[in-house]
């Protein structure tokens, strides 16, 4: 059961929530819609669910337009950020709701609800009311409720957004395992990169009502398609650069411009280096920034080093492995040389300055 989204536009008054979105969610995959708040991801999800109508374009579920179907025929499971459970009903009746309104025989309802409560690991809590459950339990009830009629598509709108960090992490892993069991086409909205990467097969990055990039977590992280994606996924050192003769010039240094379809002409560009791809040396290295250590912060798995460099406005940030940091024994005030191991270059488009790239 695939979802096809074609040329969808949607405005709320003067605000353009979606500005022409094309997207295909392949059957059986778990896809994350990732982006900052206001990027249109929730609006897109609501359109896919049929709760909103697009101004233009259409959504098809496995080739059939959803606009014509009643919600019952559409058979979409949706899990809301704030659970949206029926407070006056027990856990059992919440999960049974979709079957009850379809007037299914009692035995079938009973069997299906017990099966689902087992699936979400809430057996034994049938008679509780939502108010007597923890946030994580409530969200699992909501999920079981959404799955009751064996929907062909499951939609999750920031499902773990209202939960504690700890519970969120557990539920994330649990959701992934569940998906591996039932292989339901799933669309998952989140603004949390870690969550998207941990749970999803594919990530759709959205910004200002448009899709910026679609790919596996690895693809979007390793080969970001735009400065926005580069910045949104983790921290980054950004430099204004100029491409001359296939080489990028930054603050007195020159690097080979990475390969680009169509080649580089002489143009201004943005150069990005991830902190973990910036290597530090005590002695001068080729093509490196001379810098001074400002601050060393151990973060557990890595050590973050903040640097100031005369040739770079706003300073630099590097992330070292603890062993490397130990070997260098850096202290504030030390002189070091920072050499980018890998860099990414994007032509500077009109209106996208380095300081405000839509975040």
């Amino acid at each position: 059961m695939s979802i096809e989204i074609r040329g969808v536009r949607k405005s709320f008054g003067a605000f353009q929530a979606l500005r022409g979105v094309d997207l295909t969610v392949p059957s059986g995959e778990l896809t994350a819609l990732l982006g900052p708040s206001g990027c249109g991801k929730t609006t897109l999800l609501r359109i896919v669910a049929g709760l909103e109508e697009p101004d233009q374009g259409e959504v098809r579920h496995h080739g059939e337009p959803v606009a014509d179907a009643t919600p019952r025929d559409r058979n979409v499971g949706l899990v809301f950020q704030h659970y949206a459970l029926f407070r006056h009903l027990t856990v059992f009746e919440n999960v049974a709701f979709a079957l009850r309104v379809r007037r299914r025989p009692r035995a079938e309802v009973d069997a299906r609800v017990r099966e689902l409560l087992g699936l979400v690991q809430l057996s034994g809590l049938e008679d509780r009311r939502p108010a007597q459950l923890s946030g994580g339990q409530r969200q699992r009830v909501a999920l079981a409720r959404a799955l009751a009629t064996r929907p062909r598509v499951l939609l999750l709108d920031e499902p773990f957004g209202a939960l504690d960090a700890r519970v969120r992490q557990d539920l994330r892993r649990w959701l992934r395992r569940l998906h591996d069991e039932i292989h339901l086409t799933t669309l998952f909205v989140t603004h949390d990169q870690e969550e998207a990467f941990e749970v999803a097969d594919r990530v759709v990055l959205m910004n200002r009502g448009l899709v910026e990039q679609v790919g596996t977590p690895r693809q979007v992280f390793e080969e970001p398609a735009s400065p926005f994606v580069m910045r949104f996924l983790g921290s980054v050192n950004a430099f204004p650069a100029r491409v001359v003769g296939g080489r990028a010039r930054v603050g007195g240094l020159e690097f080979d411009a990475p390969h680009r379809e169509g080649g580089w002409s002489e143009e201004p560009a943005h150069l990005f280096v991830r902190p973990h791809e910036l290597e530090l040396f005590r002695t001068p290295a080729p093509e490196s920034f001379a810098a001074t250590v400002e601050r060393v912060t151990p973060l557990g798995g890595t050590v973050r080093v903040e640097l100031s460099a005369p040739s770079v406005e706003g300073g630099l940030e590097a992330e070292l492995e603890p062993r490397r940091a130990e070997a260098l024994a850096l202290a504030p005030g030390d002189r070091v040389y920072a050499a980018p191991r890998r860099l990414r270059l994007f032509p500077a488009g009109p209106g996208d300055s380095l300081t405000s790239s839509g975040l």
Partner: protein
Amino acid sequence: MSATRRGVLPGFGLSTGLTVFWLGLVVLLPLSTLGLQTARLGPAQLWQVIASPRAVASYRLSLGASLGAAAINAVFGFLVAWVLVRYRFPGKALVDALVDLPFALPTAVSGIALTAVYSPHGWVGRFLEPLGIRVAFTPLGVLVALTFTGLPFVIRSVEPVLADLEPDVEEAAALLGATRRQVFRRVLFPAVLPATLTGFSLAFARALGEYGSVVFISGNMPFRTEVAPLLVMTRLEQFDYAGATALASVMLGASLLLLFAVNRLQRWTRARAGAP
């Protein structure tokens, strides 16, 4: 909270003491004189006063019309609250203000206005008369007056609860395959029922004691359109204080019992509605 265990909130003793003192001063003190006055009658006399056919007829009318009016208000009040919360329309602020008008009007004014409208020559009464429906000077008139004065209670109780319902919940129900009717019956109605009952009991209590708006439209015919509060007034005007308080005690007992029952029902529905 037991006295030995100190609560988190300070001032439990002081605030409770003040509450009891205040309730005693405002509610119990006047009520106790009611009992004292009534006690001046001997048992046989008492029975004669409170069980006289005229008194029983007035209880029946008062209780019946009050229950009827509260029930009508529960249904239509729910509807008005629904419209006020769910829809936007020109003049909504005006409608909103109109709802409170029965509170603000002196009850005698409402009574005179209603009588003018429903009397056989009034604006509405004129058209009802040929149909054989008489409102003024009949028990129906009492019902109309009590419905009028009780209008705001259900609306103002239900409104905030309806407004607080998350749209998420209805969307979830719709996506789960519920029709509009099923969403209403299975999701909205149970959530709003406790508030509707609260409004019902308030409207009922108000109607039981209502006097000003009823006296004009009812015509006050003994055995037919005489409400219990009016009978009490009549006794008072004859300086029969003991008789008046005896009747009042009966009304008081009956309304206490009924309100208690409604409160129990309300608590039960609230627990069922999953409120904390």
